[in-house]
């Protein structure tokens, strides 16, 4: 095992900030390439006319997941040294729903709003200020919601622990699910785009 490099003290914290900046450039670059600096493109996901959000996200998840799995079994990467968030199930489900509301109302998520703002979208900048305002608002009532925030703590829990499926088989199952999802997404796009054009024609 030689990776994660940082956990094996191969470089300093100062140097990790330079890496952070470089990795951020790659992250922002591919978000913009995918078209995620555009709220209209992102929102199309929820009207089934352009499912790029699903396609890009799941291709990225599958790519990184296979990479982590492969590098672990050949003994290069120690999976257990990768930082994982602990699960607080109910706050995370509620937080996810609120985030989903915010996504369709605001048109971005925090990462994509940065790309939108840096490519000149004023709504991206307003969204970004909104995130800071919302976080500030939450901080003011934090003492009240703190018991909820720490509720249903179930620690570091992997999907394979919950479903009782071995890691490798789960990786394979997720790949198959994603492929099925991509086929369904291509089909849905064609169907819903056609429908939209028909509705517009009727209006005219």
């Amino acid at each position, binding site marked *: 095992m030689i990776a994660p490099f940082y956990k094996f003290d191969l470089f300093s914290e100062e140097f990790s900030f330079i890496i952070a900046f470089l990795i951020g450039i790659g992250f922002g670059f591919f978000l913009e390439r995918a078209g995620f600096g555009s709220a209209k493109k992102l929102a199309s996901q929820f009207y089934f006319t352009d499912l790029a959000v699903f396609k890009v996200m799941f291709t990225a998840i599958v790519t990184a997941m296979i990479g982590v799995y492969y590098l672990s079994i050949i003994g290069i990467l120690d999976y257990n040294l990768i930082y994982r968030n602990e699960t607080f199930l109910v706050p995370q489900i509620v937080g996810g729903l609120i985030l989903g509301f915010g996504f369709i109302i605001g048109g971005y998520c925090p990462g994509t709003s940065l790309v939108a703002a840096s490519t000149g979208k004023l*709504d991206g900048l307003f969204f970004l200020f909104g995130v800071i305002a919302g976080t500030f608002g939450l901080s003011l009532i934090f003492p009240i919601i703190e018991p909820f925030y720490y509720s249903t703590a179930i620690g570091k829990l992997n999907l394979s622990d919950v479903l009782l499926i071995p890691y490798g088989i789960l990786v394979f199952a997720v790949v198959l699910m994603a492929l099925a999802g991509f086929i369904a997404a291509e089909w849905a796009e064609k169907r819903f785009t056609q429908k939209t054009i028909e509705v517009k024609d009727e209006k005219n």
Partner: protein
Amino acid sequence: MEKTKNNGHIYLSPKPYSNPYLAGIGLGLVLLATFVIMGRGLGASGAFSASLAALVNTIDAEFAHNNAFYQSYLEGNSNPLRDWLVFEVLGVLFGGFISGILAGRVKYGIERGPNFTDKKRLLFAFLGGSLMGIGAKLARGCTSGQALTGGALLNFGSWAFMLSVFAGAYMLAYFLRRQWR
């Protein structure tokens, strides 16, 4: 980049977006590199919280140190801006800009559907952002830190979160269609 002439003006028409599967592989490799080099994943909302903590601490240090929310960012007296995600987010701004410039897509504007006003759109962007700030804090991360990173690590809470995000957005999509279409 194609040049089109219109009334004597030369416009640079933006290049089309990348194939989503290719962009996804690119994003996945960046995420994998982050795991291998740093032993952690990508993020975004954490940088917003750290920046806010730095701001609040500058304005009213006593308030910040007495608030449980900010305390975690102010531990050890180090500057909350000395945070990995803060540097990563600066890179995201820069990387998005580079890609946009190369494709001729950096352009001032407001994204909305044809039947929606700019003012309302900006208000909705701010409101949606506020909800995201709240949701991301409750969920311990956003689409980057939870869905993408935790998703690839097959983290149970991250998958529950991801499904909730899609469910939440689809639930409200019908009522917000005028903003987009």
